[in-house]
């Protein structure tokens, strides 16, 4: 990791040891989530685009570590709605805060902010581009439930074309020799550039257009994502496939005992309610893990680890 800049914009610059080091820190925070390590620190959460789930997770992390939070949850209430540039907002806030955590609707916004800001930036999502803390909590959940990140069989299901979480996972998992199964409607297949990335990095993958008991039989992880109506150019196609990529409890009968089901949330109907009580359902604990991972990322950005 580039330790001259403590910003976390994407996971691309992190190597295997960086990732495992951060995950180890997250385990430490899970064992002891409350401390005063951020005593005297002010962290700004700038959410130019609303995202309650991510913002609450980051703000809880700061609060549990004894820091103070300033910021906004909706750009409509800030000067950016009056036409202030992102640079000016960042320069102004960096006068007050030791760290800026930002979500923005424009791609590359966090990268640019990190170039102009005198304090570190954590990217909490920039449009369809990067959302590194989500990927880190996905990895943490896999490591925690499987006891390893190496050699996992991972099914990625749903919207593989636009879903940034699945794309980031490919990047982060390249150090851990995974085997991926891409399961999606034809219109939402994994883009060619990501399949090319897998080939370049010797990541094994197969593609499937059917989601059934057979294809999930050997999985260690099923990573579900939402198939959204607005992603389809052909609505007839959406109507045809919308119920084909739903995980039902009866599909899990013959799966491996260590299988866990992950989902970045929010879920709509792609995981049936009857899966929730199955011990292999892990998506709510996964969201909770976000707290410990974000505690680690915040402390790392502030050079406190």
């Amino acid at each position, binding site marked *: 990791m580039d330790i001259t800049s403590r910003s976390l914009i994407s996971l691309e610059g992190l190597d295997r040891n960086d990732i495992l080091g951060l995950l180890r820190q997250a385990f430490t925070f899970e064992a002891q989530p409350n401390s005063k390590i951020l005593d005297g620190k002010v962290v700004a959460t700038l959410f130019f685009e609303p995202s309650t789930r991510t913002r609450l997770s980051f703000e809880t992390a700061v609060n549990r570590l004894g820091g103070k939070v300033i910021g906004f949850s909706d750009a409509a209430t800030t000067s950016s709605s009056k036409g202030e540039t992102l*640079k000016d907002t960042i320069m102004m806030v960096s006068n007050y805060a030791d760290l800026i955590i930002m979500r*923005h609707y*424009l*791609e590359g916004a966090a*990268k*640019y902010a990190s170039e102009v800001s005198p304090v570190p930036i954590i990217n909490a999502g*920039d449009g*369809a*581009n990067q959302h590194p803390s989500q990927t880190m909590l996905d990895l943490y959940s896999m490591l925690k439930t499987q006891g390893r990140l190496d050699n996992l069989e991972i099914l990625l299901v749903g919207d593989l074309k636009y879903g940034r979480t699945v794309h980031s996972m490919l990047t982060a998992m390249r150090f851990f020799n995974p085997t991926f199964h891409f399961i999606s409607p034809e219109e939402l297949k994994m883009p060619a550039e990501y399949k090319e990335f897998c080939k370049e990095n010797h990541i094994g993958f197969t593609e499937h257009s059917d989601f059934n008991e057979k294809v999930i039989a050997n999985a260690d992880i099923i990573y579900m994502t939402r198939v959204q109506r607005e992603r389809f150019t052909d609505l007839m196609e959406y109507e045809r496939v919308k119920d084909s990529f739903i995980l039902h409890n009866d599909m899990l009968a013959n799966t491996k005992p260590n299988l866990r089901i992950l989902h970045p949330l929010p879920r709509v109907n792609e995981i049936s309610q009857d899966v929730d009580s199955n011990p292999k359902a892990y998506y709510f604990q996964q969201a909770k893990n976000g707290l410990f991972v974000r505690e680690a990322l915040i402390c790392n950005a502030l050079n406190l680890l």
Partner: protein
Amino acid sequence: MEKKNKSEQLVAAIENGTVIDHIPSDKVFDVVNLLGLTSIATPITIGANLSSHKMGSKGIIKIADRYFSEEECSKLSVIAPNIVLNIIRGYEVIEKKAIPMPDEIKGIVRCCNPMCITNHEPMQTVFHVVDKSRGTLRCRYCGKDIPKNEIKLL
């Protein structure tokens, strides 16, 4: 031979300066803009849609008494990587320069991603040249790849 001489006469020779050759015909005025030739006071001859053995049709620009730095020339690689610069002194070509593709392109190209921060913030665009042979650029900010045939200048 005589025919060739006549076609060469379409564009007057210069004593000293730069001849930019093998410009794709549709990129001639992009070259004019990139090199800021509209603000140069020395004589400039612009030829477009000239016949070319290699390219079928090409453009050529002759700029008297003016030479260009490597940085200025590297801008041209974005739109036409096969351009050749002929350095002329005393009516003789003393050097033929191919244009090197730089590793990074700053402030010339627009990102094709409408949701990229560079299209909304008063800031300089930066692209990494990820494939020099194909001329593919990658936006430093949003990470989108732009194929050569989709490159748009600012």
